[in-house]
């Protein structure tokens, strides 16, 4: 697989993730303001802004990726890191809420897992495809760019 192929795939992929996160972020903000009522989006305006930032980071990488500039990979990697952080946070919240529900604490009696399904959870599979792709060898992310194989930890 050529670097050029990888970069184009990543650019296309980054713009898809950016649009998905951007749309979800806007919906979450609108829901927070009370302009729309949509399930599984959440109504925390600031959380919506955080999702928008993830979209911004992914979108900032598109142009350099198309220009075969390795800086684009940095935005892609950090975008994935931020999406992962938001996903892990929401999974932890679901997990601890589940404990409260199992223990039958008063505040958790009416809790449902559906209440906690926010964009940071259901969008994450899209954001993580690239990471899975790299692990399975279908995509090369961290070694892209003019000095491939030079990226070290």
């Amino acid at each position, binding site marked *: 697989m050529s670097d050029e192929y990888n970069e184009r795939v990543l650019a296309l992929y980054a713009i898809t993730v950016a649009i998905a996160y951007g749309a979800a972020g806007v919906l979450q903000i609108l829901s927070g303001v009370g302009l729309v009522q949509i399930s599984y989006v959440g109504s925390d305006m*600031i959380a919506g802004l955080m999702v928008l930032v993830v979209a911004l980071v992914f979108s900032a990488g598109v142009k350099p990726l198309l220009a075969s500039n390795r800086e684009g990979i940095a935005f892609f990697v950090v975008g994935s890191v931020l999406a992962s952080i938001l996903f892990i946070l929401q999974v932890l919240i679901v997990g601890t809420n589940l404990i409260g529900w199992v*223990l039958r604490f008063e505040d958790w009696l009416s809790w449902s897992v559906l209440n906690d399904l926010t964009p940071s959870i259901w969008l994450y599979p899209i954001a993580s495809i690239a990471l899975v792709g790299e692990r399975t060898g279908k995509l090369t992310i961290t070694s892209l760019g003019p000095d491939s194989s030079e990226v*070290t930890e």
Partner: protein
Amino acid sequence: MIEQDLSIEDELDAEIILADQRYEIIGDILCEVYQEGSEKWTLSDMLDKVFLHNYLGIPVFLVIVWTMFHFTFQVSLVFMAMIEAAFSLLGGLTAQIPVPWLASLLTDGIIGGVGFILVFVPPIFFMYFAISILEDSGYLARAAFVMDRVMVKMGLHGRSFIPLLIGFGCNVPAVMAARTVDGDANRLTTILVSPLMSCAARLPVYVLIAGVFFPAYAGTVIFLLYLLGIVFAVVMALVFKKTLFREESAPFLMELPMYQRPTFHGSVVHMWERGVLFLKKAGTFLMLGAITLWFMSYVGPGGIGVSVEDSFVSILGKAAEPIFAPLGFDWQIITGLIFGLLAKEFVVESLGIIYSVEGNLAIGAALASSLSTVSAFALLVFVLLYTPCIATVGVIRRETGSSKWALFSVVYQLILAYAVALLVITVGGLVFV
């Protein structure tokens, strides 16, 4: 020529010269041993490209800090409920003690006070855990670097942000860390604004009030309060720089560490080292305070075992009630704020004791009936901005070598807290009525 160089160097900061010399030596050594190959781009470089980005650096910082406070509040909720249930069970047992004063001391004083503050151990520990992860990963140094740009643009000293970051844990070491700031005026400015940073002791108040009045957005409200602390620290620093002190800001030199993968064990150890200090405080200082508070709410001019309305604690709170009437705070909250001058944990502890002695075991419900939502937010802002604790005032006096500056910090923070809380009430009243 040498004389001229020396005179120029005299004007520069010694640390900058030292850093320049260090890099000069490193450069010389590299010239001898380094063989040029293809340029390397490490993972640290890659991450720094975005984390230190001109425009994205601050939004990314906000995402990370928001995640930290959301984690602190939301994930700790169930553990708080567990501790609360355990103390409720214990309180049920101590209430059965046949000696009334002893039953009241244990149930209302110790369990209602210290037990109630211990409910907030999970968020405090989780916050320290999150800070440890950020520190161990190397991101916290980047946060200081990103904020430095903003501060320098506003004419402030970039290095001031490190004491401010330390202030997230405790304001006492934050004030002491201002020693690293160059220039008397810059140092004094940093000392005076450090107490505006939200320390861990304020967290129980935020968690309690935000949990009662903004349950769906409590994590976000806490995040906004921490952010507000930074904003006010920067604004006040700017005000001081423009009025009281005028000194040029020096450049901020900082070596950024490589990113590291934080280990669970390392972060837990760091969390424990800091968190255990809170537990020690709860077992000593806060325990003593709880007994004093209980005594003051159990005894009044009418003798021992009077109703809390006739107790010394009520007299104290009611004396200041006219001042706080525009903010909508009742005497119970005012008493908490007065004791909060000793340490912020006392705000929650005194509310726990007073409501418990009154027979209101559901503190959340008692608060909800005595405060409007706007007043609750005003209370959060007041707690954020007024004098953090007596220990901080003491360390300000020691670091500045002047009681005048210590007194000034207390007075300006009280005025600022009152003015901003009143602004919240006024604007909130216009928006929500």
